[in-house]
């Protein structure tokens, strides 16, 4: 654990004061902090190597292209898939939109698109739009009063509905729950469903092996995994991926353009029109290199023990109610205090230097299910430590006193 505790020093933004108090960053679910090596790599690109990719024969362009394509291999290795199965997008949101748009011809009236009750809006609305376009039906696997999906029940629901498309988050951004996606995917595939897993929250904490998961699509955002903003990953099993129609069109993704007819390249190029977010790809490469130096088991154990400590401390405060699955969790907890408004807590905590998120966390349907207008959410990463949690709990006591007083 001592090694892991040192990693915090690699994250310059953590070393600052807010309103006179040391920053306690507990909002990694919104976006992760970045290690210095990522910042340095972006710097290096713009200061030394700045050039467009895939377009120039000159040295700068060639180096940029080589480095850019190397990162595609890196993330492919990380996910245990092939580099040709990786499409760069602008974020997890675009990744899901690309697939949902591409499945339009795949669906017929009354076909079923199945999602779950705890999805992020990004994994709801594109499917809802797809259902509207195709007259398919959007169906929902429910959660219990804690916000947890019962896997056996979910499997029954899949068998009963036989969806054409099944989309599910690997981990919930609001509650941190890890879904048993492997089992759900296997069941959905029995009925020939196209499966998409939203790994926006899970990737950093679980480092999934997609060959093992066997989903058709997996999406994530670089900025939630130590990388820069404006970059997402779409993994797709090659043949299915390549069979999707083109999404956005423009330069680079074409084979031949004439005013009469245009032919397109194969995936992944087919889905990557225009100048990509080169600096973000290179920065994400540095993030993956950084992650690779951290032993997964050690990190996971560390994160889990922090999370257990956090949950224990929170549980001891009278009036606090915790939601979600506190056993299978990436390190994110949502809670309320009596009937107090989350807004007041977020504002008050901030005056103690504590950065948490409050509100519906882009999961309004989940909030409706739990009958809440919002929660206070604490989300951890491996760069947090016990002191962060102690400071947070102290501040929380003070906030309660302020509010009750």
């Amino acid at each position, binding site marked *: 654990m001592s090694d892991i505790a040192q990693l915090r020093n690699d994250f310059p933004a953590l070393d600052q004061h807010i309103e006179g108090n040391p920053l306690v960053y507990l909002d990694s679910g919104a976006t992760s902090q970045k290690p210095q090596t990522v910042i340095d790599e972006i710097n290096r690109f713009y200061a030394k190597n700045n050039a467009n990719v895939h377009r120039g024969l000159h040295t700068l362009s060639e180096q940029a292209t080589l480095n850019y394509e190397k990162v595609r291999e890196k993330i492919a290795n990380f996910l245990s898939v092939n580099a040709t199965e990786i499409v760069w997008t602008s974020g997890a949101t675009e990744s899901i939109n690309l697939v949902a748009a591409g499945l339009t011809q795949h669906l017929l009236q009354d076909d079923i698109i199945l999602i779950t009750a705890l999805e992020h809006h990004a994994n709801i609305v594109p499917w809802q739009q797809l259902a509207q376009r195709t007259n398919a039906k959007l169906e929902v696997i429910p959660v219990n009063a804690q916000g947890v999906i019962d896997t056996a029940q979910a499997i029954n629901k899949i068998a009963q509905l036989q969806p054409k498309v099944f989309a599910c988050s690997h981990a919930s951004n609001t509650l941190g729950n890890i879904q048993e996606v492997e089992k759900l995917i296997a069941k959905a595939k029995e009925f020939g469903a196209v499966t998409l897993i939203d790994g926006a929250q899970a990737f950093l904490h679980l480092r999934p092996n997609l060959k093992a998961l066997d989903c058709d699509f997996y999406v994530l955002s670089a900025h939630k995994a130590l990388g820069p903003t404006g970059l997402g990953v779409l993994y797709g099993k090659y043949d299915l991926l390549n069979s999707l129609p083109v999404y956005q069109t423009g330069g680079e993704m074409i084979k031949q353009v004439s005013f009469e007819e245009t032919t397109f390249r194969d995936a992944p190029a087919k889905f990557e029109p225009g100048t990509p977010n080169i600096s973000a790809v290179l920065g994400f490469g540095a993030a993956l290199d950084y992650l690779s130096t951290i032993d997964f088991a050690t990190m996971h154990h560390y994160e889990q023990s922090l999370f257990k400590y956090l949950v224990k401390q929170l549980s001891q405060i009278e009036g606090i109610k915790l939601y979600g699955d506190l056993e299978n969790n990436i390190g994110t907890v949502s809670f309320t205090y009596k009937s107090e*408004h989350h*807004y*007041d807590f977020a504002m*008050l905590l901030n*005056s103690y230097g504590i950065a948490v998120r409050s509100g519906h966390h882009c999961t309004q349907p989940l909030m409706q299910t739990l009958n809440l*207008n919002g929660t206070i959410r604490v989300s951890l990463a491996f760069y947090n430590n016990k002191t962060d949690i102690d400071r947070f709990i102290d501040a929380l006591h*003070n906030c309660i006193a*302020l509010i009750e*007083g």
Partner: protein
Amino acid sequence: MTYQEIHDKLSNTASWQQSYREIMLLGKQLPTLPDVLKTEQAKVTGCESNVWLHIELDEQQQNLLLVGDSDTRIVKGLLAIVLAMYSGKTPTEAKQIDAYQEFESLGLIKHLSPSRGNGIKAIVETIQKQIAQLT
């Protein structure tokens, strides 16, 4: 509490926590709006929390009467400050009020950042717009 009393209280706070305490106390003193008045129409859009606001002129049609509520303590307190600024003023007087400058002098301007989502900007704009319509 008059606006002057509020001003004196808030100008002397030593820390953010203390000024939050005062703000929340102000909110507590603001009567709860009966549910029938919490209409969609009375809702101020642009706030992260719910804010309801009613503005009228008194019987002599001279002075402003304002009532409002919010489901969060802090925003309700900030709302109380705004209401105190405008209550009892004639529309002509009210038009002169620079609420932003008042918040500045209360040391609260940081709270009014649009990205804080407290909607004070929206509240003040709603008041000014309704006053313009009243007169």
